[in-house]
């Protein structure tokens, strides 16, 4: 079934049609999709929206699906690299006083593991999934600001290369992923290692902010007609809330890392207590970003869970409104808990206790989400497929992580477990259980849409059980060894403390967990090459991305669908109603109103361009140069300006048309 078979024209209410078609001068008009037959419509749209051929064409692509695929593959590569870091660390820790890896390398390994997993894997991959799915789910032809989106990918890749080339040169940061001063400051962090940390943050945050802005605008302004706020899919809501959290949280860490660079390169004393600065300021700034960061990774995963459960429970999510309000509540509250990362710094007791209460509070909206999902599943026997298995794994693991989070929220209790392996266990239960398991489920769920082929169910089941057992074997015992007194970030430990056997057990689990990803890779490759053809909607799910072909054409939808229900494909079993009136000879999007999604104006979407790549090279080069001298900002401004002029060169085309 192609998208055209699903769509047909339906009479629009007269006022809508008038708005959609607009009332513009004929000489500025080109051919429209109104009344055009399917074959010529496809020909027109394919020519207008295609990514140009050749290498230059590929590098110029602004198609959200092309950019998202690149993001997904790159992030997966970083996941594997970060995983190899972890395996190396686990081998070193498999017995007391092992001499395989010395402190210098070990400290780089755990820093690179954290930095890679947080900044190069988790945040980019959840955003990339959004880049792919959000425009499809809201029924649009491309993401908003497609060139900015392409730019974000190039910046992200250069940041990742920057960090990993530094590691290859043994100048990777060795100060932990949160790089506390004074350890990372000018006096105790010699060489360029801490500078690499600070600037690497800047790359990834610039890229992340760009995606967040594009996502917000796509969700607010490019929704298909009829997709009023109450009909937005939960996954899209999750990405919207996440993007707002990104917009408010990321500047805090960019300020932190910039202050650090200033202290290190320019000689300011912002964090130097000897000159009136304060080392704790760094921690406040960092965690004001760092705690929301957890939710930046977790909220999109909840969106995935909210998309997978209805498809297999065969009903819309129970408590849609409650789920949306929980997402928004979590987004707000995530900014009010940062101090629980700092309970051991000796803050005033009353103030710290306030953060106990606020940290406990965030468990309520998260609880609402868990209960609503469970209630969705209660209605009938769910269809057990690999994506749902991973969602079950998510419940099993994430609930443990959430509950140990409640333990950490208590100031006195935290003082025993803070900075121990108990915390390592906790946040891996939260991040792997809360985000990676849903992501793996999402991979099985949306792989058919992206490639047009199914992944193997049998391999999928093997993959799930190996990952599930490996994960729990690796991380559950860490709770215990933490309570027995083992601190984090130690490259070795004395034999007489009796942590040897349990650490060997943990290492075994970690190896199993790593092997599960090998199996996953096999399944991905096998699925892409030999998987059974998927068809448009293999799971009979209800949201718009399943209305178009798999993989979707460059223009996503031949005709823009009209949405009548939160699960439009379930509500309109025969044919989706569509809106018409868009031009087919230029890239035109339908822009709708924020709340009601009434069709409002037609707007041009940017054409492919090589300039975002050049701009990213100029910006990336400036960041790289700036770890050596602050003058990089001055000299780098010129090439950046030139590339931006190229990027925004006037197109001589008319402005937006009503």
């Amino acid at each position, binding site marked *: 079934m192609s998208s055209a078979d699903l769509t047909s024209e339906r009479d629009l209410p007269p006022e809508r049609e008038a708005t959609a078609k607009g009332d513009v001068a004929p000489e500025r008009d080109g051919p429209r999709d109104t009344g055009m037959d399917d074959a010529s419509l496809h020909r027109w749209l394919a020519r207008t929206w295609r990514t140009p051929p050749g290498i230059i064409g590929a590098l110029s692509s602004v198609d959200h699906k092309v950019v998202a695929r690149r993001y997904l593959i790159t992030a997966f590569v970083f996941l594997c690299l970060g995983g190899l870091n972890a395996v190396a660390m686990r081998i070193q820790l498999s017995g007391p006083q092992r001499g395989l890896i010395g402190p*210098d390398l070990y400290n780089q390994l755990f820093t690179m593991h954290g930095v890679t997993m947080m900044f190069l894997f988790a945040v980019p991959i959840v955003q990339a999934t959004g880049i792919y799915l959000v425009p499809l789910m809201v029924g649009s032809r491309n993401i908003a600001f497609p060139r900015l989106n392409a730019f974000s990918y190039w910046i992200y890749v250069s940041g990742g290369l920057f960090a990993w080339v530094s590691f290859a040169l043994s100048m990777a940061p060795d100060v*932990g992923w949160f790089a*506390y001063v*004074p*350890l990372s400051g000018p006096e105790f962090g010699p060489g360029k290692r801490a500078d690499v940390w600070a600037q690497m943050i800047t790359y990834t945050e610039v890229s992340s902010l760009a995606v967040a802005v594009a996502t917000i605008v796509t969700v607010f302004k490019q929704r298909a007609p009829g997709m009023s706020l109450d009909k937005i899919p939960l996954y899209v809501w999750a990405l919207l809330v996440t993007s707002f959290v990104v917009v408010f949280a990321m500047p805090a860490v960019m300020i932190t890392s910039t202050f650090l660079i200033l202290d290190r390169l320019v000689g300011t004393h912002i964090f130097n*207590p000897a000159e009136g600065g*304060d*080392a704790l300021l760094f921690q406040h700034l960092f965690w004001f970003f760092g705690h929301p960061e957890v939710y930046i990774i977790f909220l999109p995963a909840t969106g995935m869970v909210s998309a997978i459960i209805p498809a297999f*429970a065969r*009903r819309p999510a*129970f*408590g849609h409104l409650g789920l949306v309000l929980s997402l928004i509540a979590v987004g707000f509250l995530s900014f009010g808990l940062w101090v629980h990362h700092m309970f*051991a*710094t*000796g803050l005033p*007791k009353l103030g710290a*206790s306030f953060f*106990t209460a606020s940290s*406990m*509070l965030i*468990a*309520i909206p998260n609880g*609402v989400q868990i*209960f609503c999902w469970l209630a969705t*599943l*209660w*209605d*009938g*026997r*769910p269809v057990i497929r690999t994506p749902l298995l991973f969602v*079950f794994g998510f*419940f*099993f693991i994430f*609930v443990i992580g959430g*509950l*140990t989070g*409640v333990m950490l929220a*208590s*100031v*006195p*209790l935290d*003082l*025993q*477990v*803070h*900075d121990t392996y108990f915390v390592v266990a906790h946040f891996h239960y939260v991040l792997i259980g809360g985000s990676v398991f849903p992501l793996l489920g999402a991979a099985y769920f949306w792989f058919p849409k992206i490639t047009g082929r199914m992944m193997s169910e049998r391999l999928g089941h093997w993959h799930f059980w190996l990952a599930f*057992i490996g994960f*729990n074997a690796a991380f559950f015992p860490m709770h215990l060894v933490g309570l*027995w*007194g083992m*601190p*984090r*970030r*130690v490259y070795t*430990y004395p034999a007489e*403390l*009796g942590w040897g056997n349990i650490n060997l057990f943990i290492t075994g689990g970690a190896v199993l967990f790593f092997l599960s990803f090998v199996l996953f890779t096999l399944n991905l490759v096998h699925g892409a090459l030999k998987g059974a053809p998927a068809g448009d909607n293999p799971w009979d799910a209800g949201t718009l991305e399943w209305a178009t072909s798999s993989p979707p054409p460059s223009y996503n939808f031949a005709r823009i669908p009209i949405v009548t229900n939160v*699960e439009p494909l*379930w*509500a309109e079993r025969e044919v989706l109603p569509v809106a018409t009136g868009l031009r087919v000879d230029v890239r035109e999007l339908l822009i709708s109103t924020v709340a009601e999604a009434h069709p409002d104006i037609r707007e041009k979407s940017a054409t492919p361009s090589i300039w975002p790549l050049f701009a990213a090279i100029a910006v990336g080069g400036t960041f790289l140069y700036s770890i050596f001298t602050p003058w990089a900002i001055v000299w780098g401004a010129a090439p950046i300006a030139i590339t931006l002029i190229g990027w925004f060169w006037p197109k001589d085309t008319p402005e937006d048309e009503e």
Partner: protein
Amino acid sequence: MKRLASMAFAAASVLSLQGCAGWQSALDPKGPAASELAWLIWFFTGLCAVVWVLVMIALAAPVLMRPPRRTEPLVLDAGADHRKLRVVAIAVGLTAAILVGLTLLSFFANRTLAAIGSDAALTIRVTGHQWWWEVRYEDATPSRILTTANEIHIPAGEPVRLLLTSTDVIHSFWVPSLAGKLDLIPGHINVLDIKADKPGTYRGQCAEFCGAQHANMGTFIIAEPRAKFDAWWNDQLQPAAPPTGDEAKAGADLFLKRPCVMCHKIGGTPAGGTVAPDLTHVASRRTLAAGSLTMSRGNLAAWIADPQGIKPGSHMPVVELNGDELNAIVAYLEGLK
């Protein structure tokens, strides 16, 4: 899933029997603060386990009870949904009630902890260094102020106030069997009150990543009966024992001629460096290099000959010594009881 969980738990419990006997365990409390915290940990763990089991039952129910599969996704039973809404509302209410309870519990535990050291008579200033602990016993009489390193002797059964600070990077002082951890931050002074119920030796180590040798920054709290503690303090106030025997005398001489003297202090001699541990009574301590090696003649020699092999990155430099010189210095240090 359940079977797996119970298997994992069984495996973990077997391992735990071996580990709980450790002398650095939060689950093996030896003082009032750690006891209060261990109780809190077990209470939270128990309650969380109950909640987790309930959620897992709710998750397994629709799979195990095998209700009929739904056919029409959009055909919903309004009555059933209304009942579910009530169940969800009750669950959210219970969650909120549990969280309020735990919050109050944690407030009261905090108050209990704060009361433990309110009448502490002894104050010890602990300063973190990369990668050792400077320990200074405060006293109103200046001549009774005592500086030592890495081992903290305290009177058993009495609260002791620790003033924590750092001169380089952030460290964290953590002796799990006595109390929770607290950071040592340059420019700040944090107050941690500890009390050991019974005489004994309690191990701790730095809990905040502080650079290359974070893993080898151990400390010991040695709780003794009051009389023994007082005697120890008086002994430690004495200047270093003069060297006996030719080898030790040569060692004392060498110590002053070689770079050792630049960093270390030995009371009663011209050696007065303060950037490294005070060695006046070094041989009376049970370990070397902040818990890295047990104190012995062989380990003293090894540490001086190859500090970068034992503790890579540490600030103890390699001092060029031939075999006789090394033996002499070790003989001298070994006598500094």
